[in-house]
Each structure stands twice: as structure tokens, then as C-alpha cells.
């Protein structure tokens, strides 16, 4: 078998997982994409181990270790996601912005200012302004009940 086949499949799977990690909002979907990336690495390890005919079979041993570490990672990750969901009623990674730098337009939107300046600031600051950025001031300044209400109406 050509080595290019498993290598190309691993590359495509890795990039699929990369897209998923970057594009998904739900934290559990992000974890699924991370699993895809880890599996791509495992496929590479197995293919190169079989190709090199390593007497120590380091590739296969490392694959087993990677599988075990991925299991540990998914356990810890799900525990963290569950705790975040219990505390904030959301598993949306776009809303966890507590440690983000306060952007200028965000402080302008929170402060007593006219809506015209806010709209111009948001248009000029972020070219890929989306719906999640649009409700940032609400989710930052609201209590958990209001955030839960937003999630309920978002999922309805």
C-alpha cells in the first residue's frame, strides 16, 4: 500500500477536525472535533509504524497511549463543560468571555452613549461581526436568568 493514502486521509481528517474546532460553538461539538484530530494523528502513527517496521513498535505503543490520554481528556473536558453549564446555563464557548480583553466598542456600548456611535464602532472594529458579537453587551451585563432566557429563545 502506498504510504500516501493513510497520510492523505490523516491530513484531511485533521483539517476537518480543525474546521470543527474553529467553527463550532457548542463545547461538546468542539470536543468531538478534537477527537477527530487525535484520531488523524493516530492513523499517522500506525501507518508510519507499519511502514518503518519498528522492532520496538513505538508508533503503536504511542497510539495506545494517545487513545488513553484522549479518554482522560474527554472525561476532564466533559466534567468542565458540565460545570460551566451548571454555573452559567450555557455550553456555548462564544459566551464565555469573562477573561477577554474589554474591547473599546464594548465599553462604549456599556457606557451612556448614543446608539449611532455604537453602530459605527461595531461596524469599523470587527469585519466579521456576527450575531454572537451583536449580543455581547447583553450577555456581559445580564444576570444568569436573562442569559438562560436568551438561550431558551435561541433554541426555540
Amino acid at each position, binding site marked *: *500500500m*502506498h*504510504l*500516501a*493514502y*493513510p*497520510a*492523505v*486521509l490523516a491530513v*484531511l*481528517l485533521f483539517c*476537518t477536525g*480543525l*474546521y*470543527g474546532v*474553529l*467553527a*463550532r*460553538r*457548542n463545547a461538546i*461539538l468542539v470536543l*468531538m472535533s478534537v477527537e*477527530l484530530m487525535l*484520531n488523524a494523528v*493516530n*492513523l499517522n502513527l*500506525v*501507518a508510519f509504524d*507499519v*511502514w*518503518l*517496521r519498528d522492532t520496538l*513498535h513505538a508508533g*503503536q*505503543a504511542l497510539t*495506545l*497511549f494517545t*487513545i*488513553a490520554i484522549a*479518554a482522560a481528556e*474527554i*472525561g*476532564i473536558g*466533559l*466534567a468542565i*463543560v*458540565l460545570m460551566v*453549564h451548571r454555573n452559567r*446555563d450555557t455550553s456555548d464557548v*462564544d459566551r464565555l468571555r469573562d477573561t477577554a480583553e474589554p474591547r473599546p466598542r464594548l465599553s462604549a456600548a456599556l457606557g451612556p452613549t448614543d446608539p449611532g456611535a455604537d453602530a459605527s464602532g461595531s461596524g469599523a472594529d470587527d469585519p*466579521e461581526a*456576527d450575531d*454572537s*458579537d451583536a449580543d455581547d453587551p447583553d450577555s456581559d451585563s445580564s444576570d444568569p*436568568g436573562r442569559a*438562560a432566557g436568551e438561550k*431558551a429563545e*435561541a*433554541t*426555540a
Partner: protein
Amino acid sequence: MTPLATATAATAPAATAPGFLSPTGVEIAFLLVGAVTLGAAVITVTTRQLVHAALWLVVALGGLAVEYLLLTAEFIAWVQVLIYVGSVVVLLLFGLMLTRAPIGRSPDADSGNRPVALAVAAAAAAALLWVVVDAFRTTWIDLGGPAQGSTRVSGEILFRHWVLPFEALSVLLLAALVGAIVLSRRNGDGDGDGDDAKDLKRQGPHRTAPGKDR
């Protein structure tokens, strides 16, 4: 054929390696299963139904197990089936249920930076494909001979050469599980004061949410 001779034959130029136009049966099977795996992975990262994403992930991981079997790594294939398909996906499904994920289509499954993510993934795929195809176009895996990943071989190398990492890994797994239990315990020591009122308040919108969910 000794391993050294196989390695030198594998690194020989394309004159000795078989071409891509006459694939062997193993290669055809690998390509078909690889197409299924890749399609399932793409559906996993693009579908808007969260539970369907987990179930398509089962297809992708099972397809990868078949690829391991085709690469004669039998033990890793069965470990993949046991751990990934058996436990990791079940854990993910439990997580989806416990975070009250909507069953139907959820419009907010994808973030707003989807074009940027698509661009980054496409650029990474292009660069990596270029490098990988350029580097390994002519290398050939010799799948003949005894299976290199049978349970006997894996057990021998794991418990003869890799014992210390194996035991360290067991300690890490134990620590991770204890950490997961500590993290997901409902009433810790720190949040016992006045949290019940917040809990009740948080329960409020969710009681009405399932009626509005599709």
C-alpha cells in the same frame, strides 16, 4: 525479506514502487473506507443536529478502526472500537444529554467565524497535502509477512519495552478520573451557601424550554 531490505526498498525511487494507476485490493478497500470515514467526519463537523453529530462520529471512528485493520494493526483496531466507539462516544452523548442539548436542529451550532474557520482549514489542508504528497509519493508499505500489530506482538512490546510509560499512563488516567469526579460533584465545599435559590432560579427557564423545543 529482512526489515532493513524492506526499508531500503520502500525508500527507493518510483521505478521500483508500484504506481497509483494499478491499485491493489487493500488500497481500494482503504480508499473506500477512507471516503466513508471522511464523509462521516465532515458531516460530524457540519451537521446542525447535535446528537446526529455524535452518531456520525461513531461512523468516522469505526471507519478508522477498519483502516487500522487494513494496516494490520489489529490490536489497535479493537482498542479503538472498545474505547472510542464504546466509551468516548457514550460519554459525549451523556454530555449532550446532561447539558440539555436540543434534540432537533439547533440554529446556533455553528459560530459566526465559520468562513474564517473554513479558510484556515482549507489553507492547512492545502499546505499539508502538498508536503505529504510530495514527500511520500513513492514510498510503499509492505503489508506482507506476519501481522505487525497482533495482540501477541503488542503485548510483548508493551510489557517488555514500554512498561514504565504504561504504568505512568495508568496513574495519569486515575488522576484524570478523580479530577473529573471532583469537578462534576454537585455540592462542593465552596458553593454550599445560598446556591439553592440560584439553582431554583436557573431551573425556571428550562422547565418551559422543552415545550418550545422541537
